[in-house]
């Protein structure tokens, strides 16, 4: 299979990564090389094989729903690009 330029742009948009026309061209070449490598996988007969999502067959651990951390808002917001009055600032979403 081969990807197309519009597919590369679409995937970049889904991934929220701005991509220039020149970058899209280079990326297309690289991705097609990588997918040639990946395609070999399609020849493997995996009928009836359970997908393996994880290295260990253990159940997800559950924990009690209780407060486990101290208030660390100040420390966490000290490293944010832009905050005000304890809130994270982003461009206006709703007029």
């Amino acid at each position, binding site marked *: 299979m081969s*990807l197309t330029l519009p*597919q*590369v742009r679409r*995937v*970049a*948009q*889904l*991934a*929220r*990564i*701005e*991509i220039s026309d020149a970058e899209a061209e280079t*990326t297309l070449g*690289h*991705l097609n*090389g*990588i997918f*040639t*490598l*990946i*395609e*070999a*996988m*399609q020849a*493997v007969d*995996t009928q009836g*094989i*359970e*997908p*393996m*999502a*994880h*290295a*260990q067959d*253990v159940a*997800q*651990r559950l*924990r009690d729903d209780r407060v486990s951390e101290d208030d*660390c808002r100040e*420390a*966490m917001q*000290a*490293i*944010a*690009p*832009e905050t005000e009055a304890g809130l*994270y600032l*982003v*461009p*206006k*979403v709703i007029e």
Partner: protein
Amino acid sequence: MIGKTLKELGKALTEKKISSVELTQLHLDRIARLNPEINAFITVDAQKSLAQARAADARLAAGNAGPLTGIPIAQKDIFCAQGWLTTCGSKMLGNFVSPYDATVITKFDVAGAVNLGKTNMDEFAMGSSNETSHFGAVKNPWDVKRVPGGSSGGSAAAVASLMAPAATGTDTGGSIRQPAALCNLTGLKPTYGVVSRWGMIAFASSLDQAGPMARTAEDCGLMLNAMAGFDEKDSTSLERSAEDYLRDLEKPLAGLKIGLPKEFFGEGCDAGVMACVQDAIAEYRKLGAETVEISLPNMQHGVAAYYVIAPAEASSNLSRFDGVRYGYRAPEYGDLADMYQKSRAQGFGAEVKRRILIGTYVLSHGYYDAYYLQAQRIRRLIAQDFVDAFRHCDVIMGPTSPCTAFGLGEKSADPVQMYLSDIYTIAVNLAGLPGMSVPCGFSAGLPVGLQLIGDYFAEARLLNMAHRYQQATDWHLKSPKE
């Protein structure tokens, strides 16, 4: 004191032959001298390191020191360390001073080790040459025109050039073992779930595992004793009782069965590398081990499955970098979507973007079954191959890397060539098994690594096998000329 093992340094410290402050300063001086060329460290903070060294000296004086108390250890810049710049090799985190400690950092702190600095790495651990770092390529101390391997290339180069007695690494597809092989170190990737991933910046969560990089197997065991253990903060940490990974170190190897997968000994491996690996296997026979040919028939599909699974997980993990809560935000943008897109476009490097795009694609509607599920089914076939193989042998051996250290820039233009550097290591991560690389000779003056793969939780056995080999050989003690 430069070039001593952790074991020797621990002894010197408890016998008061040197203080931790002196030892730390010696290494800081060496870093100041050598790092400008090697570029193994992204951050060095002498004040912070020396403050830890003073605290360690107080512990040593009070007589409550452990085996690592006072020993400087370099930390891969993937581990969050409170108050330290923690970049993960990326411009995206170029200004990220961590507000908290990774569990691995806490554990070394509790052990009294000194954080010697944060080591360079491929951006978000995505690479096999340490050339994708935003902070510049790392040079291999054995030949500065060559790569140290990756992604833990800074850690490998720091230890190989004796700037650090040991370092931490992480291994998602070979990132501890391959740089260890290319820099003549002993490196161990533990069984998935043995070392906590809390505070270790995520690449592919079902594959990532931290481990030690040092000069001897014994030192790796000392470090693993400090690093391993159940952590409730990591949802995939395994609830197992603590173990002493050094307990079997001296066991004789007589009667042990070494499995040699024919897939590791076919075409595709450099002849000089193969000659060293064969010599090492002959040495193991001399030590009393038996060899048996085995097969891992699905290993050949490992690289393909990995480059679906790892990017898929990465595309999800790296969606957190949005320029809102921490990390890089583009200086100019329009609306919210534009802020995301520009921050991510400017903050991530080319290889990271490439993998996010692969991951986004294979997880998208219409492709999920064909790629992601198929890769996960192959992952099970590969894991099952190992289960079958361990019915016939105790440990598996082969080369760590198909070649010795390659030239800077030699493979960076072609991602596929770079990906194939991990052809012998990737299957171990897919299965979640422990693996090691052990120095086993030189080809044209460059180090070669022997890979040891164990069954689940066989770390003590692997360390035993590596240690006995290191008692009989001295490859691991060789250092590059300055």
